């Protein structure tokens, strides 16, 4: 191809955009299927079984159904905000893909502040939930949204604190530097086990998944903030949720589990992504497993867990790390 017409940077952008969209959709398709299968087997039933071999095409068919459905806007809803909210939920969870280090060469942009970029984008998600709940003019939606805000504020602090204790060691927010530090040394889940556990618990709450699924508690709030959404509006929230799972797991892998490092493979700079994805999907499996094991926590328990346990321990861990690094 004659690259004179395409500035390489533009080409990179195009490839990156395509790559991100593919990963988002394939991940969601796969995860919804995996979630339903695992949920089924935990409850001693087969899960989706009828569409395709062992129901493998089920999520594809569901996706097509969602896309062809009408987007109903409730009367008295704030039409503009109501339409914008799903996009707002979807865009920020896609952005972190730009800085995720899949392997040594497979990293779209290695920002100096990669970790901060991810955290910023992750916290935008709560905005989307608030807008969605607020604009749909529905009490369940509003309740769900309010809970989500309280929950996300409570759980972003332990996430930040636990990641900071790693940053204190690496002296950098760049995702590549953090992974490199683990390849030359020990994985940070061994150096910072407490931070790792705190991150996992808080990340679970950050993705609004059971047992922390207060914003969409089906049994209390019908569906919480997305009660009024139908068709692809709902579909985008759904995609957002599964992509968000992917993001928090990826951050955990990059920061605590050695990123792309693993047994050496040929063409390491590229194929390291296999190890990265393997670890990500193991973490996601654990998240699903947790969801189908525990009942939903009560709201005060949720707050207690964060303010009484996670934050004090994270702070303690941070201080100890700071002192040891200084010595």
């Amino acid at each position: 191809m004659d690259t004179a017409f395409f500035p390489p940077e533009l080409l990179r952008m195009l490839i990156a955009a395509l790559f991100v969209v593919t990963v988002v959709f394939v991940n969601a398709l796969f995860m919804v299927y995996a979630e339903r299968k695992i949920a089924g087997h935990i409850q001693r039933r087969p899960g989706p079984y009828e569409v395709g071999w062992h129901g493998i095409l089920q999520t594809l068919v569901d996706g097509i159904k969602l896309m062809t459905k009408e987007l109903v806007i409730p009367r008295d809803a704030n039409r503009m905000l109501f339409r914008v909210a799903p996009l707002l939920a979807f865009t920020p969870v896609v952005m972190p893909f730009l800085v995720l280090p899949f392997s040594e060469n497979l990293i779209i942009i290695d920002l100096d502040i990669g970790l901060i970029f991810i955290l910023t984008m992750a916290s935008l998600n709560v905005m989307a939930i608030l807008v969605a709940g607020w604009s749909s003019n529905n009490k369940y939606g509003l309740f769900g949204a309010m809970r989500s805000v309280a929950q996300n504020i409570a759980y972003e602090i332990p996430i930040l604190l636990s990641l900071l204790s790693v940053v204190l060691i690496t002296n950098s927010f760049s995702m590549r530097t953090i992974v490199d530090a683990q390849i030359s040394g020990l994985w940070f889940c061994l150096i910072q086990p407490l931070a790792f556990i705190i991150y996992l618990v808080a990340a679970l709450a950050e993705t609004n998944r059971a047992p922390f699924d207060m914003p969409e508690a089906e049994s209390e709030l019908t569906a919480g903030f997305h009660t009024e959404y139908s068709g692809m509006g709902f579909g985008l929230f759904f995609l957002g949720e599964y992509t968000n799972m992917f993001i928090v797991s990826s951050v955990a892998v990059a920061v605590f589990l050695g990123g792309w490092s693993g047994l050496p493979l040929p063409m390491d700079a590229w194929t390291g992504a296999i190890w990265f994805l393997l670890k990500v999907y193991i973490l996601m499996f654990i998240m699903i497993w947790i969801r189908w094991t525990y009942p939903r926590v009560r709201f005060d328990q949720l707050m207690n867990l964060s303010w009484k346990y996670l934050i004090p321990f994270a702070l303690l861990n941070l201080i100890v790390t700071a002192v040891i690094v200084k010595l």
Partner: protein
Amino acid sequence: MSGYFSDLYHGTKSLLVGLGVTFREMVKPTVTVHYPRETLTITPNYRGHIELVCDEKTGGSLCITCGMCARACPSACISIQSEKPEGSKKKILTGFVLDFTRCSLCGICVESCPTDAIAYSQEYNLAGFSREEFHMDLLDRLGKGGSLT
């Protein structure tokens, strides 16, 4: 402050035990039945809608058209037609229609029949597109698949 650390310890422990339980269940084989392809055997006690019993000797019904069942039915869902052919002493059954949309499956009709001409069927795949599908002509069904002996 009391109980802070013991809460933490016991909470964590019970959470891990829970994960262990679900993991063990996950790797066990499933217990459900893939319905349209596999079916469970139905217990003989199953009480479906009523069906006329086929008389093994004549191949017809055992019904003597006494009308007890129709009278006993609390929902009035049985209607019986009969006629007396020329020169015959006995009436013969010419129509036995069950309006299953109203039947409460109480079984009083089965109890009240003096000749045990009706019994419960084992049919449970009862779905249809119109109400009329459940106005069942039991005499018509007699001898065709649905009949009982």
